[in-house]
């Protein structure tokens, strides 16, 4: 059985672990303890976690075991451990967003995603490392030090959700939650050989997700298999009255789509703009092989021209900083978080400026000032206004594409994992990591990254991105699961089994 875990519980898929707990083959407490032990053993090297909530995790696991003992029905992910990105609030548990400005803050409320995870009886192991306020593509912008890629500890695990992706690849957790504003779920998945999904904007509640760019931010599932991602997607998605941008419609049946796993008769578009110059050779060869495989599986593949995508990165780096400069104004040192310079002499303005100077890291400061500039009178039309018009053009390109094809595909990111430190003080080089993922955020539709092999030149994972129209998230899972099954058959095992032991 492909889902067997040969005695090592940390190797199990979420679906297999849940089934084993349900059947009574193993207790949720044993599963939680195995993962906590794994974290204790390897996280010094990986640094995926900012906080481990062992007590809370074991209490939740014990509650699942008690529920089973009482003969109550268990949900599809009951007792499965999960790593939660530190951008979601969790009552009483430190939530820092990777920033010094929130060091030690224990939120007085649960995010809706956190609440849903608890209600689905998932066992939250702790909070994962991230680029400060989700601004970055490498997790090097965390104020608490970088996370390392389990495939090669000298390389980045992607970002901003590098803690979540690394926790999966290091077998510290079978499931994780990420957020994706410009690619922060998909790009980390790509460089760690894992699966990551950015649901349709509004598909997963943003209540309790500390805001970076409100019109783009979207929480979503991270896993080692497509089916596991679908099970987690189903657990966290759905309408939430506490988020005014939450979609009040039924969640697409992503689990059934993952189980269906076929592309027969589907039309798949290859984005012309995301190919050629600037892309690593091994990324392109693995990508094109995967596209050929989709064709062999019965899909019709056509090339699709989306000329506005070439300007998506530029539009994003005006829109996201603009929204960030406004959202991060809340960190004013008054009601929560850090306060610096409150000496009885300094007034409120000085205390704010001193606190923000001490509490924010370089990338956050850069983006706040960039946004402040783009929104200032005299520059607004040329920068922010034009960026919003590009957003319209991108939506039109998607509309045109989806009139002809069911999904679009591209490489998830132009390269494999780069070295830690390589792009840290070169913002434009860093921003290129999100080149292929950004259009989806700007248009609000759905995207997934799945592993399609290792680049021959460096032996590092390559991801393929699938993009579906808004509220057609199920198509991602159909295509993703079909490709995953075919690739596993070809390789004889899932790619993640090739990750070196730590």
């Amino acid at each position, binding site marked *: 059985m492909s889902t067997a875990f040969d005695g090592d519980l940390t190797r199990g898929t979420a679906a297999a672990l849940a089934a084993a707990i349900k059947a009574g083959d193993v207790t949720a407490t044993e599963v939680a303890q195995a993962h906590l032990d794994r974290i204790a053993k390897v996280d010094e090297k990986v640094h995926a976690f900012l906080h481990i909530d062992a007590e809370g995790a074991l209490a939740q696991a014990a509650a699942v075991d008690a529920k089973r003992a009482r003969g109550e029905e268990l949900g599809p992910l009951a007792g499965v451990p999960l790593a939660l990105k530190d951008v979601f609030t969790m009552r009483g548990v430190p939530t820092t967003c990777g920033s010094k400005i929130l060091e030690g*803050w*224990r*939120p*007085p409320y649960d995010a809706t995603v956190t609440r849903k995870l608890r209600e689905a009886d998932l066992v939250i192991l702790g909070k994962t490392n991230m680029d400060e306020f989700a601004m970055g593509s490498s997790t090097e912008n965390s104020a608490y030090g970088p996370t390392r890629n389990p495939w090669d500890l000298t390389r980045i695990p992607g970002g901003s959700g590098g803690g979540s992706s690394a926790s999966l690849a290091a077998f510290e957790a079978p499931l994780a939650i990420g957020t994706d504003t410009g690619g922060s779920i998909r790009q980390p998945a790509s460089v760690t050989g894992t699966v990551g999904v950015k649901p349709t*904007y*509004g598909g997963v509640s943003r209540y309790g997700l500390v805001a970076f760019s409100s*019109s783009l931010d979207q929480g979503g599932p991270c896993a080692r298999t497509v089916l596991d991602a679908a099970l987690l997607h189903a657990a966290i998605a759905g309408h939430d*009255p*506490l988020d005014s*941008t939450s979609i009040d419609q039924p969640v697409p049946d992503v689990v059934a789509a993952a189980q269906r796993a076929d592309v027969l008769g589907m039309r798949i578009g290859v984005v012309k703009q995301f190919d050629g110059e600037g892309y690593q050779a091994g990324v392109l060869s693995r990508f094109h092989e995967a596209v050929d495989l989709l064709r062999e599986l019965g899909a019709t593949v056509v090339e699709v021209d989306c000329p*506005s995508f*070439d*300007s998506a*990165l*530029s*539009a994003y*780096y*005006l829109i996201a900083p603009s929204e960030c400069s406004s959202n991060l*104004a809340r960190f004013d040192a*008054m*009601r*929560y*978080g850090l*306060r610096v310079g*409150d000496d*009885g002499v300094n*007034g*409120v*303005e*000085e*205390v704010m*400026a*001193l606190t*923000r*100077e001490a509490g*924010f890291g370089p990338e956050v*400061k*850069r983006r*706040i*000032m*960039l946004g*402040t*500039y783009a929104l*200032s009178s005299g520059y607004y039309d*040329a*920068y922010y*206004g*034009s*960026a*919003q*018009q*590009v957003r*319209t*053009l991108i*939506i039109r390109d998607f509309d045109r594409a989806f009139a002809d094809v069911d999904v679009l595909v591209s490489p998830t990111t132009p390269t494999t994992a780069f070295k830690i430190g390589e792009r840290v003080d070169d*913002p*434009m080089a860093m921003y290129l990591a999100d080149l292929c993922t950004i259009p989806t955020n700007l*248009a*609000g*539709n759905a995207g997934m990254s799945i592993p399609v092999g290792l680049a021959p030149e460096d032996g590092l994972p390559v991801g393929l991105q699938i993009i579906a129209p808004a509220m057609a998230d199920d198509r991602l899972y159909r295509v993703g699961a079909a490709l995953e099954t075919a690739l596993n058959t070809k390789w004889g095992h899932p790619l993640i089994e090739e990750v070196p032991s730590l």
Partner: protein
Amino acid sequence: MPAITREEVAHLARLSRLDLSEDELVHYAEQLNVILGSVARVSEAVQQLGQGQDIPPTSHALPLVNVTRPDVERPCLDPAEVLGQAPAAQDQRFRVPRILGED
């Protein structure tokens, strides 16, 4: 687009409530110039791709307006828990630095 000077960065820092150091002002002026030089292409892109048409701006992917929820009582945050997380609290309130200048 005109280059951003050290003085402009200082102005942006004031607006952003960031007490930047001298080194930071110089470094960010350089980096913001590089970034803006690259993203400034958006206006040309609109001209080119829009083919002279008037392209409406999009601020949000979902065309939602006036989203409301039923006006019903629900539990609020625990005041003691909230104040316990404040940098400073006094008399069941957030204590803040003085808000008015000396003169």
